[in-house]
């Protein structure tokens, strides 16, 4: 059984859900629920969740590799040698590229740039999206209308063509890539965060805060935002995945900084040097696989966050199998325990 928020036993009847836990006649006859298992911080529950833990381990591995690349693969990995494309061997575990570069070293060094850009873009896009979404939801009225209009415009503009155009006209470099990706990526988060903020805005505790005399800033960041923690996290992870993937995409098209070693540029050079056509699979598979794995790891963490914060999601998988169980005759052991 995947980690269950112990305070949230699943029930068929929604009303009993609250009743069992907090009614004064709760059968467990406790004045209050036990302190430690209830709503242990998101972090705690995440580590307990198998999916999230797997994802975090994979991600941690990649981050470690990225940080330790200068130690694990010293020297400049992009130095062109006369080795030519060599299949994987004992000396070059993943072989060499047509330019004679060690693929393993390239992949390890590539992690640095890809992960850095990915995370920076992810955080920046989420941050802007959060600011826009929160203000939009809280201020309402004309401010909301204009900010929503802005968000929608950015959403409608086709991302990839815009990316390509911007990247083509701006000076090459990592900063450009980061700017361009953030520019095209914030709107999606803004929309999601706005809806969530809106639904929280409608709750009585926000009205109570207004009536207490709290100011807008406090209400947005200390009343509404803490209740959005999980969706902010999910949006953040999504933005990071976007950052990594879009960066790779840009670079593969040659619009990034091709002198930097990253997974995307590895793929670019692999294609440029004819690796795809000559069957030199080891030149591009590792970088591609790395991107996929990191995205997978992040997605796992995302599922984990989802499951931990919304116990009902867990039930959909179980309900299917247990619907059959519910209709099966109750076994004598079950009934006469």
């Amino acid at each position, binding site marked *: 059984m995947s980690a269950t928020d112990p305070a949230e036993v699943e029930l068929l009847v929604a009303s009993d859900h609250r009743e069992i836990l907090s009614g004064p006649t709760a059968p467990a006859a406790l004045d209050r629920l036990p302190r430690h298992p209830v709503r242990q911080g998101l972090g705690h529950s995440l580590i307990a969740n198998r999916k999230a833990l797997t994802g975090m381990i994979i991600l941690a591995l990649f981050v470690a590799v990225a940080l330790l690349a200068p130690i694990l693969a010293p020297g400049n990995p992009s130095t062109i040698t006369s080795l030519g494309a060599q299949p994987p061997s004992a000396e070059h575990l993943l072989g060499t590229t047509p330019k004679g570069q060690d693929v393993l070293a390239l992949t390890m060094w590539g992690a640095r740039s890809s992960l850095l850009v990915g995370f920076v873009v992810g955080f920046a896009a989420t941050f802007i999206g959060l600011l826009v979404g929160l203000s939009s939801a809280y201020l309402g009225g004309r401010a909301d209308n204009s900010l929503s209009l802005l968000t929608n415009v950015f959403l409608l503009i086709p991302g990839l063509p815009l990316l390509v155009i911007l990247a083509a006209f701006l000076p090459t470099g990592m900063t450009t890539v980061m700017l361009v990706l953030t520019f095209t990526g914030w709107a999606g988060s803004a929309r999601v965060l706005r809806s969530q903020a809106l639904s929280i805005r409608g709750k009585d505790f926000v009205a109570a805060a207004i009536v*207490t005399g709290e100011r807008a800033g406090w209400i947005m960041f200390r*009343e509404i935002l803490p209740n959005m923690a999980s969706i902010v996290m999910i949006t953040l992870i999504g933005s990071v995945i976007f950052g990594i993937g879009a960066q790779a995409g840009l670079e593969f098209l040659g619009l990034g900084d091709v002198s930097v070693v990253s997974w995307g540029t590895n793929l670019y050079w692999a294609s440029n040097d004819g690796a795809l056509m000559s069957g030199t699979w080891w030149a591009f598979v590792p970088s591609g696989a790395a991107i996929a794995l990191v995205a997978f790891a992040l997605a796992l963490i995302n599922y984990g966050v989802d499951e931990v914060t919304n116990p009902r999601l867990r039930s959909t998988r179980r309900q299917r199998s247990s619907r059959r169980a519910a209709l099966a005759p109750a076994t004598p052991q079950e009934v006469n325990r």
Partner: protein
Amino acid sequence: MSISAPVTGTPADTEAAPDAVISLRGLSVDFPVGGLFSRTVVRALRSVDLDLERGEILALVGESGSGKSTIARCIARLERPTAGQIVVDGVDVLRSEPRRASREFRSKVQMIFQDPFGSLNPAHRVGQFLERAAKLHGRATDPGQLRELVENLMATVDLPVDMLDSRAFELSGGQRQRVSIARALAMDPEVILADEPTSMLDVSVRIGVLNLMRRLRDERGISMLFITHDLASARYVADRTTVMFAGELVESGVSTALMARPAHPYTQLLLSAVPDPLRAGSYDPVERARLRAAVLDSPTCPYDGDPDQVCSRTEPVRHDVGPAADRHWVRCHLYRPAADVASRALAVDTVDG
């Protein structure tokens, strides 16, 4: 001193009761409906005149959609009325602080909400609510004073001090409402607006919360506007009761007298519908239909022909029920409420078969 609106006078001419902490005059609220360019509105409140006196609990009774919550939200400055005055301690706050309520206003007028599960932020601890409220209004300067104040508040609402470290979801509904009341008290208010504070509570804990409200009135002289659909609680806790229908007030008087001798057909309708085991089996569909018709379009008014209390179909005049000193008034029966809202409020939807 009763308030009888002059036959042709505009509501704003009415003089306020001398000891009213809050007076509403001509309060109207329209909600726009339809799309961006639509002009249609829904009239939630139509020209409401209401007085809340110092040290009294006034019950505002009506069914859902009658507009009673809207009144509370307007007084709490959560909604902006379309027209009218909100006079607090003699000052029309809509005029003196039009854009945003001042801190003094916030400390004078507090509110507790209906949903105990939604009115406390799940991310905060109980102590934080109280401390924040107290600090914001300068009720305590140093941590020691703050702690003492907060502990006193918990004692006032009969909650244990160690609950200060709990989070909202660890508390029961009744306990949460008490925390909300404690937070309101932290600001030392003159008025507490209670929007259906017991409707979502378990039946056995309601009396406790109602008793707390009575005590706050008796011991601290806090005035309260108690909004409810439950006539029985209104009678138990409120000094005076005002009945609301389709955005307008129809009757008002001392709670016990009003429920013993309801003058308006809508009040009679409400009273007849309250489940009362002592009156079991008394539901009479014919009488129900008659009352419904009387509310929407009454053919007669008991004051018709009285030279001192002139009736009007078009103006919502108020008639004195009994001696003026009783301050029991009823809206003229002949007055026709606005068709659209009224028929929805009384949803006549059965076919007599």
